[in-house]
């Protein structure tokens, strides 16, 4: 398969883009990476994702596929001969992986977004409590899904590892900025060990950005928002 056959429109700080990068690496797929500048949107991006105008977008041949977890499943299905399947073969285990990935995207990670925006201490404390409670649920999910093995996917990295693992850089950045530990060995020991394993995995370690770099990005975004607010 020619490299130019597979393109990934992305941005390095995006955890959603990181998901796709991890999977492409896991499946040994050659591709052309096209970094999208922020905040402008390229013509190719607007043409490939007219609905959301967001990254990541995978372009295979000339067909775009959007939404990170849908792209992950697509890659898993097309390059199914390149390594183990990312989703469990048992339909119930597969449903659990999908359920928790949806929980992470729809319920848990949005709390982190609210936390970044929160101004008052009381609001921040409530959100931190909610985030911690969510992680306890994910700890239980980890114990059930991993069945004593290293990853949610068992012996090797799977769909749910990628769904949650892609946020680890941002979680660490949040911990540094707020001074509050979210992934706590006393409350979620399984997840803490899993996180270390995931981040040091060969496939992952060159993809996930350093938390310090993400903090710089965050500060830049916050400065831009402030400037935009004061100028209007």
């Amino acid at each position, binding site marked *: 398969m020619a490299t130019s056959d597979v393109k990934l429109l992305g941005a390095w700080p995006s955890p959603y883009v990181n998901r796709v990068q991890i999977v492409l690496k896991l499946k040994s797929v050659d591709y052309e990476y096209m970094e999208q500048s922020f905040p402008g949107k390229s013509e190719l991006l607007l043409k490939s994702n007219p609905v959301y105008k967001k990254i990541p977008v995978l372009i295979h041949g000339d067909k775009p*596929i959007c*939404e990170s977890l*849908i792209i992950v*499943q697509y890659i898993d*299905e097309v390059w199914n001969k390149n390594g183990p399947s990312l989703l469990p073969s048992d339909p119930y285990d597969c*449903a659990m992986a*999908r359920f928790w990935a*949806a929980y992470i995207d729809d319920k848990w990670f949005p709390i982190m977004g609210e936390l970044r925006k929160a101004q008052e201490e009381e609001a921040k404390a409530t959100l931190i409590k909610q985030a911690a409670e969510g992680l306890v*649920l994910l700890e239980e999910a980890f114990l059930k899904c991993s069945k004593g093995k290293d990853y949610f996917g068992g012996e090797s990295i799977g769909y749910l590892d990628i769904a949650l693992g892609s946020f680890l850089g941002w979680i660490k950045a949040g911990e540094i900025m707020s001074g509050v530990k979210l992934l706590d060995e006393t409350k979620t020991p399984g997840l803490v060990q899993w996180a270390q394993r995931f981040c040091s995995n060969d496939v992952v370690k060159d993809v996930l950005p350093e938390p310090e770099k993400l903090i710089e990005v965050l500060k830049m975004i916050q400065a831009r928002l402030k400037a935009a607010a004061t100028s209007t």
Partner: protein
Amino acid sequence: MENLKFVKEQLKGKKFFGGGKIGYIDVAFDWLNLASIIEEVAGVKLIDEDNFPWLKAWMELFSDVPVIKQSWPDQEKLIIKYQFVLKLESNQTSMSSAQEEVKLFRNWSSAYALRIVWALKIKGIEFHTIFEDLENKSPSLLHYNPVHKKVPVLVHNGKPICESLVVLEYIEETWKQNPLLPEDPLDKATARFWAKFNDDKLLPSIAVVFTTQGKEQEEVKVPVMENLKFVDEQLKGKKYFGGEKIGFLDIVFGWLANMASVVEEVAGVQLIDEENFPLLKAWMELFSDTPVIKESWPDREKLIIKYQLRREGYLASSVAK
């Protein structure tokens, strides 16, 4: 009946199968005197005078022979025995279908739960419905869905699966007949994309129109029209979103086919009209007319009342702000 016909032929012109007296074949066929026991216990007529007159006559003659009569087991005891055997057999049958126990927790109106009803019916899967009062959730629902505490929940052989899109994929992977998702990975990704679009963008945008009025409603109607345009385009050259027959995406968009008009009536707004969305309008009629879909629609009058109350609540609270 055919087999008994063969047997009766053997009695033509004879008193017994053996001729003038009981022979080898009479003894072999002696169990036929159990016929009346089988008829009584199983509630079926097998050997009657009209169809098998020779056989009936032989049965009476044979039973009356002293050496046979004195060896018969007690008739009452035989009836009790075979009634018990029949009960055991029917329990085995119902147990093997219970091994495939499928329960669906839903309420009367949830569009998300309807998706599961449709998917199960299209695949011909028998299931048991538990209706929930969402104001007063059952301990079972809270046990099976502790994270979201919502319907629908599918419980398959005691294991719960929650979140309608996750449930649909589970149903598709568990029961392979009448596939709902396309086989091709790109088509599958496209179906999943538009399903997510419905849940994340289309439905919420229509909900916003529902909770507003006047100038504000006019403004929030604009993104709905854009979203509906995307959906309408997906039907180009197709009868259903799934192609020639109902598929995953039809099931996900299905709520539009009955709820859109409820929203329009209650909120006093025109959303899906023939002029702007001809393909979508045609699909809505086709989809609604499908028996397995039609028979599951919640009562429209009840829906109107429910959503009228809801809208009044939203408008009152926005005025209070």
